[in-house]
């Protein structure tokens, strides 16, 4: 099975590539536009996909992917299932700072979510800015400050049992 590996290709100069994976394709285009609008320090390539594995034909021409973002719509069961099945196609090294989860319409309490997006225009813009911050780190563009692994350890949320709300 062809796994998506994080370091098998050489990065390009001053460029970072982010892959947005969403089953429904609702938020993808909006987020992609916001990402491109907000870029300033470095070039951002945004690639869209509905699920993994990515098609084999483009494998050679595809640049190195620095950050993979899974967009989950919490009101749709299928969205979560598609993400779960896509996760199997990722090399385990990717989980050390190169993968990020984004949820929309999240109204219940979740403990192991990384980012939450509200569907307003401001919300999408803010989410894009945050994604760019994470992307900058995972593409290795701020080596003095931090690495992707360290950032993911800072934002790690321990999965705990539901706290008794008295």
């Amino acid at each position, binding site marked *: 099975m062809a796994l998506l590996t994080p370091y098998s290709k050489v990065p390009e100069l001053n460029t970072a590539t982010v892959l947005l994976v969403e089953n429904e394709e609702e938020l993808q285009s909006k987020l992609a536009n916001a990402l491109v609008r907000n870029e300033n320090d470095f070039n951002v390539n945004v690639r869209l996909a509905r699920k993994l594995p990515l098609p084999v034909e483009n494998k050679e021409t595809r640049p190195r992917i620095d950050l993979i973002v899974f967009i989950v719509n919490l009101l749709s069961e299928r969205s979560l299932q598609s993400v779960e099945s896509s996760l199997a196609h990722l090399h385990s090294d990717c989980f050390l700072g190169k993968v990020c989860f984004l*949820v929309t*319409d*999240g*109204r*219940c*309490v*979740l*403990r192991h*979510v*990384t*980012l*939450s*997006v*509200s*569907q*307003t*225009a*401001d*919300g999408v*813009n*803010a*989410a894009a*800015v*945050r994604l760019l*911050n*994470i992307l900058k780190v995972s593409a290795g563009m*701020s080596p003095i*400050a*931090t690495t992707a692994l360290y*950032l993911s350890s*800072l*934002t790690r*949320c*321990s999965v*705990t049992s539901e*706290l008794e*709300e*008295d």
Partner: protein
Amino acid sequence: MADLSNLAGLVSEPSGEIDSSVSSVSNRSLRLAEKEKRKGVADPFGLAVKYLSQVEAGTVVRGNDELERNMVRVETVALSKGLPPEVFTVLLDLALSLNAGTANCTRVLKFLIPATVVPQEAIVKGVSWLCVGKMPMNAQVLFVRWVLTVFDLIDCKDDLRSIYGFIFSFVTEENLFPFICHLLYLLTMREHVHPYRVRKLLDIQAKMGRQPFLTQLLALYKVFRPDLVTLSLPSRVRTGFKNHNSTWKVALCAVQRKNTSAVLVDQSLSLDVKEKPSSRKRKLHHLAIPPLSSAFDSNSNKKVFRLQELCSFKELLENIHNIELPAQMGSLLGSALALHYLDCVQDESAFLRLNFWLGHSLQEEFLLCPVDGSSDNTSEGCRFLSTILFTQQFLQEGFSSTESFLYKFLSVWDGCLLRPQILDLLSDIPLMPSFYMHKLLFEPLKQLYFTSTVFFKCSVIECLNSMLVKWLTWHSVSASEGGLDISLNSNSTITMTLSGFMDSVMELVRFVGLLASEGLRLENCHVLLLNQTLAFYETVCDMFLKYSLPLIIMPPAGVFYPALFATDSISVDRLGYIMFRYRKNLTLAKKQEQQREQTFHISRNTYKEFNRNLQAMVNSMWNSWWCIPGSDIEIDKDLIALSKVAEPWCRFDLIHHPALFSYAIEFHQRTGKYWNWYMEFLFNQGFDGLNNFIQTNTGHGSTLNSQEDGQPKSQP
């Protein structure tokens, strides 16, 4: 008109008096004509209502065009402008007696939108029809839901309270049960709680299990008569009542919006209107603070004053023992007079009901309803949260329902929606045991903090700073009242010892230290972030002297060194002030420890840390020798030589420090080379913090501007 022409014929006489009398008569006939015309216009509606009031039992419905026509007429008026109060009795009679058939019953109930108020006689009549028991179940449920929806608009609730027993009898109906519980919750007063009613509810609970609405009602009963309800109930009951107003919500909103000028006048009871919005939209959206209704029953022979009748503080003081709280507790928010009363009386049932309403509204608006992008929604949410903030600041403590809402909301917050309000509410959170702090507060904040912009980071540090100040103030106030067992805000049942409190404070300070040091690294020592961090440590350094909390925590290296080597002079000055205050705190602590038996003990590590930092700072700035072997910032000599900087060891002293170098040049240009004069000049620029630091640690310094507890002028 024949009369008018006759009169007009008489007008030709030149006499003035007759002229005026004739004109007044002619005016009167004109007015009569106008009235006739106007009556003719309003007539369709009145006629329709009249027709509907005369519909007999057994009327044929199918194919009855006249009935249909009149219903449609009334329906259109209802959905466009809302119904006037007089027609409610008629319409409810028609609907609930089933004279026009069951289909029309639900139809009428669905368009019963009030324009202003609903008379309570109509509701009482409706309940009596309910007791007759002819209606189908869905119609009964619809009726009770309707009563709940328009509850705030009922002019007076006295009669409803007197038939409490009849309403209570419906608790045995399974379908009606949730809504009846809600209605009882809104109507219950202390005199309604009787042992047989409590027994009945407990029986039902045994059969149905613990239902949230039942638990709510029992909790309220328990507050009024704790001797009768002995079972244990969770201290903070989550939102319990089902959503009842979905059928009417849209129509009600539309009508209320149209009638904004004609709706109940807001008897503004607030004395201090500094932050209150002057005009509140009168939408019966579940977010709006419901208005305190101004109508009161003059027939009531109870000597009880309703809170909404009072207009001034003086009246409140005179009648403080006779006040009855409004049924809709949410209307107390934002009204300073009502909050004064709540604060003095400390009525637990009032807080319980207020917390329930608040929790319910917050949950519905922010957690359950989907956020659509309309700015209307967010501005309403913004206003609502600002009102809560105002209330919390007025009462000087937070509500428990706001706290639970914030914990739930933080994990789904995107850091952008209503940011200032959420962060302000966050700073009002009362003290909590350190065990919960990580899971509830720190983890969600960390996720948001490390991926957001530098301005968000600054806001978070500022919020945590004000949270710390509030906790410390609360401690210094309650500790002065004696005792080591400090109970938290007046409504909570958690008590905390002094050591538990110190643990929590230490956790918070350590957490902010982590956030600050990592944040400064990520943002390349951004000057705003550095200043917010130093403001936080200005609070921390004085914990012992200002707030009498025997806890001294040093800033981590990730904060100290960026401040010491900062390129802006304000940070360096603030650092000097902080170190100066730390020294004062530590010396006093040491003196107290030596002089008498103290229950606290400052560990040697703290002193060591402070000494290390002090040495680093004095050596860099005064002794021109920052690269001491064995210190944290030792760099190999060869490496320094590679930088090709001349005289590298004095590059961080008072003259050559990158933040102060410009002042040195300016001085040099102005006067010459004299050291003392330079010192005076430098400290004349307002660097009081630095002045005090140098003075206390080296004995030198400008004598002109030094003060005992010098606050640098750069302080806000």
